């Protein structure tokens, strides 16, 4: 098959994964090795000079990880990708390639709590300054952009669930100011939403969640959309200036529309080091093969559970964009017509104590701080992840005392509903 554009499920199984050239192994082998022998001295020099395609050292690249990279690039419709140790590492290497000390980026206020911590605190050490904007107020993003702004960062479906972000509208602001838009597509996965089709320039993933889908491996990805022109843009010296690390090579010029992915690899991953284990890459690849099937089931069951809870006498409200009349219903119809994801929040009439009791009473739902597993998961943010915040702060970040977050898994939905009913009784 050469020129016919393959469908999503075909890509999820085949993209990047030809049989092994040396052995014919059909499943992708786990190249569990630190290093790769060079064919000769000249070959080694070519690899170190970025003049030939090939493998040197697993911190920089690995053939198992490369299959994962090409797979996710294909699923997102990007030009190239880089696999790294975690979703956090993916964000870190993205900003490392874009920001200098003293620079700013604008980020949506509603994000995964871990990203909020990373941006608010850890990035301060690098002189990277986050400016927060409300994802429900697109104009707020425009107002937050200054001459120091180097990127905009949003989540497609925002954690802890229930928020669909208008990617195209925020992309228009990014394009107006000629800065790249980075979209964290973890909660949607490319099966539900492909941010490049709505104007994103870079996509990041925590592959730990729906991509891998089995709750067994941490990993992250950076996907290059190939749409941003770095050449001649002095604001992004990693991509537009001669690099002393590579004899004066200009990455943006040499690598064209996949230069960003290359920069995060040969400057970021090489020097900062958050490499993905090839074993984890293999686990994530195996998960991705069933991504379309899993996402269909995740969304079907989530819709049923959300509708059931909406009618439950102990429940005050349910925030899931798949529900009729939800605040984000229109955006969900536009951006995620195949389903609004599998993570949502709801509020208990009984407040904090009812939340604690629910989590204790559940038998099938696992009480833990992850999402996107085959298993259904529950967390009561006020007593766990957001415990250290004041009540006001908890409410502002969508983690008020009455709020419970669910990640619906692949069990029989009748069993999940029965478990919630007995726990709420």
């Amino acid at each position, binding site marked *: 098959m*050469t020129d016919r554009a393959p469908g999503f499920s075909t890509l999820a199984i085949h993209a990047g994964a030809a049989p092994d*050239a040396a052995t014919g192994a059909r499943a992708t082998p786990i190249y569990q090795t630190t290093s790769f022998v*060079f064919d000769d001295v000249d070959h080694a020099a070519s690899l170190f000079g970025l003049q030939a395609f090939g493998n040197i050292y697993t911190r920089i690249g690995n053939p198992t990880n490369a299959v994962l990279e090409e797979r996710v690039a294909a699923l997102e419709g990007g030009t190239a990708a880089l696999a790294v140790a975690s979703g956090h590492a993916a964000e870190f290497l993205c900003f490392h390639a874009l920001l200098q000390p003293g620079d700013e980026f604008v980020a949506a206020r509603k994000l995964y709590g871990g990203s909020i911590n990373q941006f608010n605190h850890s990035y301060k050490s690098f002189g990277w300054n986050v400016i927060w904007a409300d994802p429900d107020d697109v104009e707020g993003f425009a107002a937050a952009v200054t001459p120091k702004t180097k990127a905009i960062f949003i989540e497609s479906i925002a954690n802890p669930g229930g928020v669909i972000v208008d990617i195209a509208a925020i992309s228009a602001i990014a394009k107006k100011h000629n800065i790249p838009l980075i979209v964290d597509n973890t909660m949607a996965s490319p099966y539900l939403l492909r941010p490049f089709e709505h104007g994103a320039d870079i996509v990041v993933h925590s592959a730990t969640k729906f991509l891998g889908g089995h709750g067994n491996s941490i990993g992250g990805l950076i996907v290059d959309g190939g749409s941003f022109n770095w050449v001649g843009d002095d604001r992004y010296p990693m991509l537009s200036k001669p690099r002393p690390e590579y004899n004066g090579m200009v990455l943006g010029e040499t690598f064209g529309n996949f230069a960003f992915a290359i920069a995060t690899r040969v400057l970021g991953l090489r020097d900062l080091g958050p490499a993905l284990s090839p074993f984890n890459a293999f686990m994530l690849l195996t998960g991705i093969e069933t991504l379309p099937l899993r996402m269909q089931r995740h969304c079907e069951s989530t819709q049923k559970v959300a509708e059931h809870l909406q009618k439950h006498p102990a429940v005050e409200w349910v925030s899931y964009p798949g529900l009729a009349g939800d605040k984000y219903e229109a955006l969900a119809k536009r951006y995620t017509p195949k389903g609004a994801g599998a993570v949502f929040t709801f509020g208990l009439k009984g407040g904090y104590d009812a939340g604690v009791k629910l989590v204790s009473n559940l038998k099938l739902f696992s009480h833990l701080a992850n999402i996107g597993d085959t298993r259904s998961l529950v967390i009561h943010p006020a007593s766990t992840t957001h415990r250290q915040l004041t009540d006001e702060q908890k409410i502002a970040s969508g983690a008020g005392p009455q709020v419970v977050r669910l990640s619906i898994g692949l069990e029989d939905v009748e069993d999940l509903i029965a478990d919630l009913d007995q726990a709420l009784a």
Partner: protein
Amino acid sequence: MMNHDAYPDSLIRDILKSVKRIALVGASANEARPSWIVTKYLLDRGYDVIPVNPGLAGQTILGKTVYAALKDISGPIDMVEIFRNSEAAGPITDEALALDPLPKVIWMQLSVRNDEAAARAEAKGVTVIMNRCPKIEYGRLSGEIGWQGINSRILSAKKPVLAGKGFQKLTIHRPGT
């Protein structure tokens, strides 16, 4: 005129399988420049690359003598690869079209596109490829480019073919293609 926004993989593969002698206009002696890197890669893949650059005429790049202009090269050239800007690609195309015999292919590098020049070449039966890099295309069609996490846009249940020496070199001469 051919659609120059999207080339079939089969066309690119046929070109890279059939051409042997390539004149590379805009050759560089600087190892960090894309034109040097492409020259090296194509030489490594067995192509006979002849560097062309009036400023470096008479010197050598990667052991190959540099010529001042296409007309100075003796013997037939299968493909002229243009590593200059889109405007300069016009007169270089005309120089290529003055060669006897004509080259089979005129290939303009990634980011280089000159539709008027392409039309003149195609009127003489010369195949034109624009805004593509032969190294990227070779890497894509052989499968090598996937090692860098780049989307080759090619799916295959056939084994990639090792290029003979070592395990880190693949060839586009794959069965069923």
